[in-house]
């Protein structure tokens, strides 16, 4: 398989004595949307935070576009990479957070153009042109000069999506992007995310929105207690799950 964007091999992660990830392996192909579901505490969020090295892994390895994330090989050993090269790798990996994490002291447009200008070195004019296009795509053309404090949760999350798209990443990670939203605005964020799928963006989405998983996912992955216990197409998952734990989980959540 040459078109693997993200490959995780036997990823282990512990917080103190608590082992959160107990050997997670997953390949995500280009243009694929993978939804990770599972009960809270199953390690879903920790896993995607490892993918852009917001969490250090304690074992195993993660590569994005063939490059090892957060570490480099010195002989046989993995050594943590320099801050500079970790930062460079992260430009390839977008992330959308549960709590949006927009920069409150910057307008919607400034949120989107901040990194293209100061990290990628784009000109202000170019970054703003593209920023306006992106905000238009997420339906917020009229909110360019608005500060996050004056936007609804759904609008803020759409700005956050535009912000990560502005870096033209190879992969976007979504960490429960609708969990902090009111039910009535969840739809607007999900529809923006569904549009992205049509444009062939590679995505890993941690979600509790089974409707979204069913509609938009190419593959659904079920995690429980730090391991992947089942994966398959949405049809497989929602019509004929095999694992007992999956059945239990789905019956509770659907």
């Amino acid at each position, binding site marked *: 398989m040459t078109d693997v964007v993200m490959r995780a091999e036997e990823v282990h992660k512990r917080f103190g004595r608590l082992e959160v990830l107990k050997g997670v392996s997953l390949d995500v192909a280009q243009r694929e949307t993978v939804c990770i579901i599972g009960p809270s505490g199953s390690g879903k969020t920790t896993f995607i935070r490892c993918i*852009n090295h*917001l969490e250090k892994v304690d074992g195993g390895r993660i590569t994005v576009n063939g490059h090892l994330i957060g570490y480099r090989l010195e002989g046989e050993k993995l050594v943590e990479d320099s*801050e*500079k090269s970790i*930062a*460079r790798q*992260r*430009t390839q*990996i*977008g*992330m959308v*957070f549960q*709590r949006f*994490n*927009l*920069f*409150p*002291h910057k*307008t919607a447009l400034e949120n989107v153009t*901040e*990194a293209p200008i*100061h*990290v*990628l070195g784009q000109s202000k004019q170019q970054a703003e042109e593209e920023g306006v296009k992106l905000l238009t795509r997420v339906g917020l053309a009229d909110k360019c000069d*608005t*500060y996050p*404090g*004056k936007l609804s949760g759904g609008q803020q999350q759409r700005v956050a999506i535009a*912000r*990560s798209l502005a*870096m033209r990443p190879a992969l976007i990670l979504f960490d429960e992007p609708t969990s902090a939203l009111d039910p009535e605005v969840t739809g607007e964020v999900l529809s923006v995310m569904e549009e992205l799928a049509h444009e062939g963006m590679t995505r890993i989405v941690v979600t509790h929105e089974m409707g979204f998983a069913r509609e938009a996912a190419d593959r659904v992955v079920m995690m429980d207690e730090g391991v992947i216990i089942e994966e398959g197409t949405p049809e497989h998952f929602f019509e004929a799950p095999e694992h007992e734990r999956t059945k239990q989980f789905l019956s509770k959540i659907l």
Partner: protein
Amino acid sequence: MLTAVDWHVVWVRIAHPNHVFFIALTRTIYVAVIAQVMGVLLGLAAALMRMSKLAPFRLMSGIYVWIFRGTPLLVQIFFIYYGANQLLGFTLIPNTLNLGFFSLDSAIVAGILALGVNEGAYMREIIRAGIDSIDKGQMEAAKSLGMRYGLAMRRIVLPQAARVIIPPLGNEFNNMLKNTSLLFAIGVYEIFADAEIGYSNSFQPVEYFLGVAFWYLVLTTVWTFIQAAIERKLAASERGEDLTFWERVQAAWNPVTAWARR
């Protein structure tokens, strides 16, 4: 035998001070401003060191604050003025520091240094608390966009922390304006020295010390208004409001709104 207060002298000290007084007043102001700027920079450096992953940095920052918050400012002033060169074995405090457009004598240099270094120890805690108050998600979001620590600090975290840092920083500067009076003890001719010398020539304590107290009150009051205007501006930009200049001036000069915000 008590003599009556000569209110005319008080009036002159308040309303018609002489040329020498204004030189002293200028000195009080620039010493306070330079020392405060130095304190903020040292405090920022010490705060970042305190949060460093490297233990020696954290230790250095800790020792710095321990010493300079744990000993009297007046002792530090004397120590730096009389002892710094001897202790260090090189000339930290020159006889005169020539800056081209003006020159500072050794007492002023030592005084600024002492006030600034002392202030840095207090500013470290204020700046650290300000940075700590910013949600960790801000740094994570910045990092996830490929920003390095320094860039994320400078462009994302510190501008937000500034809003938290500015109010206590204003109080620090209020203290700084008054603490400059301690430099009289090493012979810096600032407004307290001016009053003290006037008093010892005339033996009119009420007249001279009331006069100088009035001028300290002017300095701190003017600063209160400036501070209010700065805070107002920061708060407005955070909320995304665009106040006009006059709205800002009005807000700053309205004591009710200025104090109600605290």
